[in-house]
């Protein structure tokens, strides 16, 4: 078998990466997801005042900016023991869910659907050949970013979130509008899920590795006072539970010289047994999640997705739709009866010291910000960002797929497509993962 080297730029994902597959003497020698993005946020935030940190941190990613801001203010408030009133918490969470809607819509319609519909020009092909779908795509994405805009005053890099509260209070009319938008989104998404009922998996081979352990990580905010980070095994059994403050100590990371993204794993289990998975497929394991909602139970596709938890990856885009629906209904719940007057808009610029952690379920998975603050300035911060957790798994699955799709001539065409599709299904946000 001759040697074949495949070096392809990964497209229709957020961030820059190259897929490198090398086959020699009948074996897959290399299968690498080489991530080419880096800016160094962990260093550049050092010495910055906490009042400005959420705004600097927001620039890690333009798609997940709200999630980063929310995690950031939580970490600062945790470190400096600043209390925030309940309405503020709810509004922040609602804004994060708004971002879920926008981000999942982008991922489902703009990035992964073109594979199913066969347009390589992505969204521009959809506009031309499937205008109905394009219209729905834009409307749901716009709905999500409008919600973030109304709560944060700008959809990309919001300005209204700040330590201790919000800089600008939304009005009652704003909240009504948000609820109405969320309602529409829920309705639209329900219909789409309904129309998917007859769909079968295009490629069953994109699956979790059978012979490797994967630890499904998600964040349950309702458990305990600060919430817990929970780890599930692929059969659904709850494997472990961590306090938010302790989690960092249980995670180790590996690095390689061909990628800027790091490879985290559970220290206790070592590498590669300790590798993680985060995101919709992981959240599917917890009881309070989209896939377990009563309202969606009747859909056959949801039942199939639920039963393929931990096994198949292809159902992840159905999960995303379900999560859009879930986020929309959660927004409506959160905004019920909020007391806007309790929201303080006085700015704080504390100069105390402390150490704290903020955890948020971002659209693509668990996001952890861990800050050490010295007299009101960041001494040190550590970020563990959703796609970073998925990085080792992506590499592993690419290797598996390459091995499965090997032919006499090297990697088959369908293998290349499968690898590309697999990466897209993970919806990696590489600028987040490398920060």
């Amino acid at each position, binding site marked *: 078998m001759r040697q074949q080297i495949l070096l392809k730029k990964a*497209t*229709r*994902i*957020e*961030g*820059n990466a190259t897929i490198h597959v090398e086959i020699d003497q009948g074996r897959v020698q290399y299968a690498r997801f*080489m991530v*080419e993005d*880096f*800016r*160094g946020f*962990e*260093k*550049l*935030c050092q*010495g910055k*005042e906490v009042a*400005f940190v959420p*705004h*600097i941190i927001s*620039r*890690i*990613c*333009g798609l997940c*900016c709200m999630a980063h801001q929310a995690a950031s203010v939580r970490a600062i408030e945790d470190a400096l023991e600043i209390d925030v009133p309940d309405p503020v918490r709810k509004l922040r969470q609602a804004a994060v869910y708004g971002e879920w809607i926008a981000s999942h819509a*982008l991922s489902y319609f*703009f*990035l992964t659907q073109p594979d199913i519909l066969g347009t*390589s*020009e*992505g*969204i*521009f092909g959809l*506009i031309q050949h499937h205008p109905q779908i394009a219209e729905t795509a834009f409307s749901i*994405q*716009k709905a999500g*970013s409008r919600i973030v805009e109304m709560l944060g*005053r*700008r959809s990309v*890099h919001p*300005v*209204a979130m*700040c330590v201790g509260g*919000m*800089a*600008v209070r939304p009005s009652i009319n704003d909240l009504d509008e948000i609820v109405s938008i969320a309602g529409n989104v829920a309705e639209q998404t329900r219909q789409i899920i309904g129309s998917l009922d007859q769909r079968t998996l295009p490629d069953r081979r994109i699956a979790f590795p059978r012979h490797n352990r994967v630890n499904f990580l998600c964040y349950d905010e309702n458990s305990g006072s600060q919430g817990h980070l929970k780890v599930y095994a692929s059969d659904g059994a709850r494997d472990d539970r961590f306090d938010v403050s302790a989690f960092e100590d249980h995670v*180790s*990371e*590996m*690095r*390689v*010289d061909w*990628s*800027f993204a*790091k*490879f985290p794993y559970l220290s206790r289990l*070592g590498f590669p047994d300790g590798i993680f998975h985060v995101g919709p497929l992981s959240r599917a394991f917890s009881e309070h999640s989209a896939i377990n909602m009563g309202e969606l139970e009747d859909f056959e596709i949801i039942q199939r997705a639920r039963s393929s938890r931990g096994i198949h990856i292809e159902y992840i885009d159905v999960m995303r739709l379900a999560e859009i629906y879930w986020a929309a209904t959660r927004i409506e719940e959160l905004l019920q009866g909020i007391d806007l007057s309790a929201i303080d*808009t006085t700015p704080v610029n504390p100069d105390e010291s402390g150490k704290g952690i903020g955890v948020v379920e971002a659209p693509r998975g668990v996001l952890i910000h861990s800050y050490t603050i010295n007299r009101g300035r960041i001494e040190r911060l550590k970020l563990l960002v959703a796609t970073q957790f998925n990085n080792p798994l992506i590499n592993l699955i690419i290797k598996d797929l390459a091995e499965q799709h090997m032919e006499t001539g090297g990697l088959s065409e369908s293998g290349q497509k499968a690898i590309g599709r697999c990466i897209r299904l993970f919806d990696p946000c590489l*600028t987040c993962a490398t*920060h």
Partner: protein
Amino acid sequence: MDRKYGPELFGSTYLRGEVVFRQGETGDVMYIIQSGAVEVSQDKNGSENVIAILEKGDFFGEMALLQTGGRSATITAISRTRLIPLTKALLVDRLKRDPDVSLHLLRKLIQRIQRAHRRYRQELLENEEFRNAVAAYSEKLLAGDRGFSPVEAPDALPGSRDLTNDLLLAEANIGTNRCRHHAAPGETIFHEGETGDCMYLILSGRVGVSKYEAHVTRLIDTIGPGDFFGEMALIADMPRSATVTALEATDLIVIDKEQFVECLENQPDLAIAIIKTLILRLSCLESMLSNPGTFRVQQHSPWVPKLVKRDRMSLSIVSLSTCAGCSAVLLDYTVLSKILSKSSIDYCQMLMDREALPESDIILVDGVVRLREDEIRLNEARRKCRYLVAWGTCAAFAGIPGLANRFEVETVIEESYGSTDDAFSYYFSGPSGIDRCNVQQINGVDLQRRAFALDSFEKVDYYLPGCPPDPTLLYDLILELTGGQTSKTLPVVCSRCGRKPAADYFEKGATSHLPADKICFNSLGRVCLGFMTRGGYESVCPKGGAPCWGCRGPSKKTILSLKNGETLEEIAVRGIGQRYGKDDGDITETIRRIKQGGHFMFNMDSDATDKLLRVR
């Protein structure tokens, strides 16, 4: 062959002292000197002034071919001379059929122009009155006073106006990217004395021609659409005779020698157009020399080209090390559909599968150059586009990732990767084995020493800063580039903010008549740089409760202050002082603290002073 137009084989004889024609007479025949010599003289203040002697092979009287005014000089034979007359029609016919004729004619014309320039220079040095008149004239040019008496549009050649118009259109349409140049306002296209090997046709915009003479650089001419310049170097192989600077955003077609010769052969109308214009130029110079006090005749181009309105531009989006916010803002369908109506998006790695970057009219590049990879991608983008646009604050000024520049790159890598295990040593020393991060190890995809804005590596045509940038800026730019107006500079952020300064806030305190959320941040004791920041995006930050940190870059006025030697910090202290009621020392200290502890404009890698005219 039409015998009526065939040239005479032997010219008419003129005896010594005979006048061929006088200044001011009408005439539409040009003469070639077959043998003998003539003198060219002009009437100046009553006395006859000999300007030149022309001999065998020279020609004269060509200006009459293009103008309907009288002869500009008197020609007298100074020996027994044979002159071959040429009518317009004959000349044009010859020009069309034989490119060598055109070249020859052009060379001769250029020699003439050179001679006129020499006389011009001499006059400047020797003649005080002349100097003053020229200075006054330059000033008027600069002031934009176009009080010229327009010359009758010389349509010496029937249908020539349309012919050359279509020619230009055709040229513009087939012109590949290499043959075009877009000059930003203020850009010097070439300097006097440089070697040059191409000429330029102006499609739109205006350039100024200046010469260094008698120890002063003077603006001597402006050239507008439909006209050209730089032909002297091309045809006569000589250094540039003047400095040409774009006075406004100007679209040019560049023609090098090879293309020029090809042009002459395939498109003789172009040659004719050039000849006509050179003749005009010469006549202007001549009239100015004889009568410096008056305005010269307007150099009215023989045609006014239809502005080549491109219907659509091809647009590609390239992302370097970025947060993708600059791409995320483009997903707003209201703006995106407007952009798609005027352009087609041919490449965007996040949204499309196209692997190779195509040649495009506009390439939008966002993000900083942080990796080696980024530099390579930027180089490719520059090669493959006509307009390179720095999209967003990272690309324009290095933005937030630029905050890492106060640290050595080794410490940045150390911070991110220092506590990770090297995959190799993991298996030899176990999970707790610490191989402290070795910078060299991240070597497959190297890091630059700093986060750079785009123009540290490549020339940027336009800057659209903002973190994130307002997508309508892109639409406005596309409109501008497809033949619309240059976008106006937006006023500072304060203009849309809605908050009002109250310098007495701390005295009045709670009794102030405005609620705190309607008062300028600076008056409240917080730092907001809105007053020195270029506007755009409807001042969304201060309206949303966050003071402006200057992501759009310094305003026009601020840049001018920077050029005068002030620093950003000084400008900030001054502006805040006007709005804040307390002591000055306080503010300076606050600015210093903010510069260290925040992400404000002071930290940006901005050499904004020379980007003034190209920021939108």
